[in-house]
């Protein structure tokens, strides 16, 4: 008897939540063999699993290592399914992401990037230790709708304000939203420097992005 496609989706989702990379690949292969729609399997299987993992992270059941392993399982399944997408899905929006100059801690930034990609956005990752001007130059060249800037160090927070001032100088402030986050950053700080939003964690970053970036 043929297994229902919903069951495959559930198994994909579970493989992601349970950090089972090999299982995610095995199920994804079966999905392809059964001619089940790859887009649906990504959306209702892999992506759903990542949303569940994000929820566990918010509830402090999962932490960064678990979230990273869930993402590995998701990406592994994605690699199998992607070539079988009938139409490539249009990205929901373009986002520049990076850790501000002076800080080389990029764990949080990578998590946010991964969650935003999972949610369908196109991410341009400038890496860590990024000067304010570079955020703005790339945002301008790429016509990005949003800049997501992170720092883990209180000593580098003023660079975030610098990004916003540079955007204003370039006349891009209205077109490009700015979201800030990271350990020492607070909603009050975000408001003070004129950022559009503060994201406390990766799942919140996705929610905020959905509000701020619409095409």
């Amino acid at each position: 008897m043929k297994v229902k496609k919903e069951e495959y989706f559930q198994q994909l989702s579970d493989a992601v939540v349970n950090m089972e990379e090999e299982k995610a690949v095995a199920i994804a292969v079966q999905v392809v063999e059964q001619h089940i729609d790859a887009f649906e399997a990504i959306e209702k299987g892999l992506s759903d699993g990542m949303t569940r993992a994000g929820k566990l992270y918010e509830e402090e059941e999962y932490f960064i290592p678990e979230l990273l392993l869930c993402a590995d399982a998701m990406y592994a399944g994605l690699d199998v399914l992607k070539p079988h997408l009938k139409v490539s899905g249009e990205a929901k929006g373009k986002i520049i992401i990076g850790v501000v100059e002076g800080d080389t801690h990029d764990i949080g930034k990578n998590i946010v990037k991964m969650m935003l990609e999972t949610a369908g956005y196109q991410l341009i990752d400038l890496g860590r230790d990024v000067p304010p001007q570079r955020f703005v130059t790339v945002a301008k060249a790429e016509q990005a709708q949003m800049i997501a800037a992170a720092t883990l160090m209180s000593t580098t927070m003023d660079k975030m304000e610098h990004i916003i001032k540079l955007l204003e100088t370039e006349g891009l402030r209205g077109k490009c939203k700015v979201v800030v986050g990271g350990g020492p950053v607070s909603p009050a700080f975000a408001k003070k420097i004129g950022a559009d939003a503060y994201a406390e964690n990766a799942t919140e970053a996705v929610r905020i992005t959905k509000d701020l970036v619409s095409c």
Partner: protein
Amino acid sequence: MLTPKARLLKVLNRQAVDRPPVICTGGMMNAAIIEIMNSTGHTLPEGHVNSHIMAQLAADIHQFTGFENIGIPFCMTVEAEILGSAVSYGTLSCEPKVTQEKYRTLAEVHPEDITHMLMQGRVQVVLDAIREAAAAHPEIPVIGNICGPVSLAASLVDPLALLKGLRKDKASAHRVFAYVSALLGKLACLMVENGAAVISIGDPTATGEILGPELFEEYAVRYINQIINSIHESQTDVIVHICGNMNRVRHLLPAIQADAISVDALVDLRKLKDDFPQMIVMGNVSTYLLQNGPADKVSATVQRLVEQGVDIISPACGLSTSTSISMIQAMTNAVRD
């Protein structure tokens, strides 16, 4: 009248003192602010590589700010550098950082001879600076700063691969942690031999928010304790700084065998003291407040901490290099008055 050194050591050994010491350990929590460096000419990044400038700058900080210690060095990259990761020394206002970890995965890590490694890089610079400062200021405690094991492992191996490996490749992870912890223990003992009165361990990657309680216990607590034990063998007290809000790892704090626990601004120290009356706690003046002031708010915050019975008053985290001397003086004077 107690000397600053006697006062700090008494507090760390749970003996009564006239008032809490006010210190800034150095290392990741240093106070090498631009205003001081510009007025004395003992500047960074030169002070990261020249032992005399390092010692002078550390003494300048003590003199200008009123912090009752001398903290050496001013970064967390000395260890990563000798382990073979690429390091940039930064600028006057930007601290040094690891630009490229040596390994991509935990399994690739190939341990080298620790004694030989401790003769490389800037280890001697740091030891010379400690010796010079301790000789010149016998009444002031020189605090030797080392990186914590999780942060050092994350400076040796790509941080994301490291974090995944803590779950996925536990055998390699424990092998790497044993390696970096042995190195850190030996480095700390060299600091003690050269005159460090206290050792401070800063492990910003080892937070409950990043690791969760299970891995925090398995790696952070276990290996921090291993390092503390080797320092205790040379009869020296240890301060451990834990970043983050600690909500999920709070119950594990008593398991850390440090002589004092230093915490981030997010932690309610009064509650921490209530929960763990035996613990010597240190903290936690917001560095954001110190940067922006106003001074009377800094004083009020410090007075509240003293009233709450906080054992050692200190900034909660690394200071911004643009913090002003006057704001730090507001902090240290509030403890002394």
